[in-house]
């Protein structure tokens, strides 16, 4: 799951010409550490839904990588 998540996050970052990350830390906060805005978060949900068939934001916003993983596990 980590590898897919890292790839999806980097796709969103690349598409906005932002610097990509080489390692995925659970503590990463999307807004503060990865410079995501609401458009990036929206894109992330779509891309994650394609990969995992889960809408991670369905029940409200998630802030960190760890929270995304929790939502993905819940539905797995």
């Amino acid at each position: 799951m980590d590898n897919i998540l890292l790839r999806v996050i980097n796709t969103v970052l690349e598409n906005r010409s932002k610097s990509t990350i080489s390692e995925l830390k659970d503590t990463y906060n999307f807004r503060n550490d990865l410079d995501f805005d609401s458009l990036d978060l929206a894109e992330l949900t779509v891309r994650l839904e394609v990969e995992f068939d889960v809408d991670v934001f369905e029940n409200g916003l998630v802030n960190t990588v760890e929270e995304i993983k929790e939502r993905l596990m819940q539905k797995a």
Partner: protein
Amino acid sequence: MSSFYSDIVDHQSISWDKLIADLIELKSYNPFCFKKSYYEIFIRLIFSMLNGKKITLLDSDLSEQEIFELTGHHDLSVFEKDIELKKIPSTKTALINALLETKESWQITLYTSGTTGKPKSVSHSFKSITRSLKLYPDNQLQVWGFSYLPTHMAGIQVFLQAVLNGNSIVRLIGLSKTEMLDAILEHQITHISATPTFYRLLLPINTEFLTIIKLTSGGEKFDTSLKAHLSKVFPNASFTNVYASTEVGALFGSNGEFFEVKDSLKEYIKIQGNELFIHQSLLGISMQNYAIWYNTGDLVEIHSNEPLSFKFKSRKSDLINVGGFKINVLEVEDALLRIPEIRQARVFAESNSVLGNILCCELDTISELTESEIRKILSSDLQEVKIPRVIKFVDQITTTPTGKIKRKVA
């Protein structure tokens, strides 16, 4: 000292006295306002009102090409003029009184996604833009959480509502969720006006915020489950849903999904074939050469005839609402088709839990192009919000049975 504006993004905390001092410093006038700092936009708005001079607000993320297309110049300093300036009032009360007397010659112009091609300008007089404004003789304690762009109609409405009542404004837009919640507590924010998307992004919240007494929502459909969630977090808040657009300003309010037409507006509203029409006398001044009845493009369902009340169903046109921004798919398709490698393009919405809708496109290309190359080219032509977030490469564009480009995903 009474606060006028707080902004942690730009590290500003501006008192009314500082605002007055900064207004006195302004020596020349530019009819175009293209600024990144919200405070810079606010101060120029106030300056134009005090001097009864026209002002056009441009989104700070417009590309150089868009600026040129809208104004005819790349460099807006050519419009800078020395004018005979009015004396700036020296106290907060005198300043507000002077603003309330804004002259007939004042006019504000905003840009909106038109139903065809390029953004279209809409101008308003002081009278038409303040139609729904409420003046309270004694509400010095209101603190407004600012969650809209200051260059858009909703932002202007909140700005004028706060300033003309001598209230404080605290920036919330562009802040992280934690920063927003901290700002609500620190500044004891009492009022927030925002899109449903904005509220959705704020949730979930586990604590209660008691200072908020009013939440206003507009720009998108407000669902009842969102209201239920917000009521738990803001137990002292009442809710108002507002129908507003760049063309008419704020027109109807409702505390649920049904909008009741006030007696004073009855003659100016018409529903025909489920479409909402508004009389031209309610429109911004630049639009009064249009037909007598302006078709809003909104599809509504009548709830009762006496008094007239209705609820919104959807939009008829090619505008897609992405987090409160209305985006014209034709404008985006035009920009895509200007890229020589693209043969055909279809821009459409997919529903999204963050923004309500997300902009997607299907492309039929002649030679290979990557998603990031396309985005790079588009970013010189379009605002970020108008660039499709999901790009699919296809052999054939999906069309309707009549051969038109299909807009809605099945």
